[in-house]
């Protein structure tokens, strides 16, 4: 994989790669993409894609479910101010 392609992909994946990592991943990603190209030999003509396994779409009632785990959920936040999660300034 070209370095530029890797940079675009990392950007989309929201990963910051060091130069040393880029070197390593370039090779590992290339090796896997090469391997993926084996799929080209396979004739997929007329085969519909399998996107999910259960083949059904189940819906639920549009009803309020009270969540009793709020405190435990907030307890996992990296930084809190009262009941607000702190993030760096957006502007």
């Amino acid at each position, binding site marked *: *994989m070209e370095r530029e*392609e*890797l940079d*675009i*992909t*990392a950007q*989309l*994946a*929201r*990963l*910051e*790669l060091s130069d040393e*990592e880029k070197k*390593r*991943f370039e090779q*590992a*990603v290339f*090796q*896997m*993409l090469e*391997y*993926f190209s*084996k*799929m*080209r*030999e*396979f004739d*997929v003509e007329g*085969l*519909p*894609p*399998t*996107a*999910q*396994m*259960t083949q*059904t779409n*189940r819906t*639920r009632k549009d009803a309020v479910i009270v969540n009793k*785990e709020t405190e*435990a*959920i907030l*307890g*996992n*936040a*990296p*930084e809190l101010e009262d009941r607000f*999660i702190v*993030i*760096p*300034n*957006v502007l």
Partner: protein
Amino acid sequence: MHKTEEPSSWSRTLADPTQRASWMQFVRDQDARVRAFLQFDPELGRELATAAGSTPSDSTPTGSLSGIPFAIKDNIAVRDFKLTCGSKLLKDFISPYTATAVQKLLERGAVPVGKTNLDEFGMGSSTENSGFGMTYNPWDLERVPGGSSGGSAAAVAAGLVPFALGSDTGGSVRQPAAFCGVYGLKPTYGAVSRFGLVAYASSLEVIGVIARQISMIREVFSVIRGQDPRDHSSVPYDEARSAEGGGRITVGVPDLGSISLHEEVQSAWEKTLDGLKGLEVTLKPIELPTLEYLVSAYYVIACAEASANLARFDGVRYGNRTAGFSGNPEQLVRWSRSSGLGDEVKLRILLGTYVLRSGFQDQYYLRAQRIRTAIRREFEGAFSGVDLILMPVYPCGPFKWGSEGLDPFSQKLSDIFTCSANMAGLPALSFPASVENALPIGMQFLGPPFAEERLLQACELFARVFPVPTCPLYRSPQTEGPRGSEGSRAQSGGQERG
């Protein structure tokens, strides 16, 4: 041996304070070498069991699992326990809730005693990809226990717990079970609720069971299965289809074609076929020509789904943030992910992001999904003529850890026999088939959807010619100390690691 492994002896282990203390000490001593657990806290588990309405110390047990300790792979949620997924990004995360599968076991009186090590987010085949150090194979501490549910398999094989839960996305329950000489069930897709399982590849993964006794697998599976309103991919368990069959079994034996097996697996494969013939099982050759395209299609799908599922780990609402961070929110997300995630996870996210990029989807993701249809149809065709299909679990036996082992690329190619069941959504059960050069080798049966009972019966049948082997470090709750001289050999192997 069987007598001491009955669930009732385990339930006494936990109920009696003296036995409990001695068992906890035993687990801590054993685990100093095996390192199966990331967190071991039976008292916390007992509190949860009490809160679930079951009292482990009660002298009138409500079910056969009452008071039985079990371990849970650390990508499955248990309230108040940590839920690290083997990732530094989640090293301090405490689960606010309990997975449905665990909750069902709690309601039957089983007691969660700890969380087991895994390859980060389930990505790997050796448990070497954990952010918190590796786990060692109790058969030989210089070897890996397999993965990604390596901690669960090692804990069961060493006799620390009678059963453990794992997750299987491409073989992560069956391969470590095979490497550790125990049974590992990957249920039918959708049969067990995944509420509380941290998502990696949603169209492939299921929660599975690892145990030394087939009866224990059956019991646990009967409790955890069933549709769950909180998991919309779960399905009602088809009892009618489950009961089909009976009588003489016909087992399909695929032509492995160009796929080469290591010597020890080849030998075990031949012994398994001979053993089955002796049991008056009918063996019938079958062909699965799509098998050789399967691993590439599997990794395209798994990585694509992983890149989407793991986008949620951004260090904003939970998870580790880069220390002393002062930037903008976008950078916070990038830095948290980059410092918190390990190499294998980053690689799969990159691959998944790449194959889903506009312009590449037809070539990779869509094509992989079409190949998936082909393998599903191939299995459907095969099952019209046979009851079960026999396959090896892995092309080699338990390999050494570190540079003497199997490189990450070879590990991926070796998923060929296990990932087929995930691609087709089929149940599969790996079983100990032989011990070669003092290491266990596993084989697996695959069945049509909801044929778990058929798989269990076939393994019970095979256990007549090859019963579950005992690893050198194993000790049942009623016996003292590791057995024989092999125990001290394995022990000395453990001293050398860093």
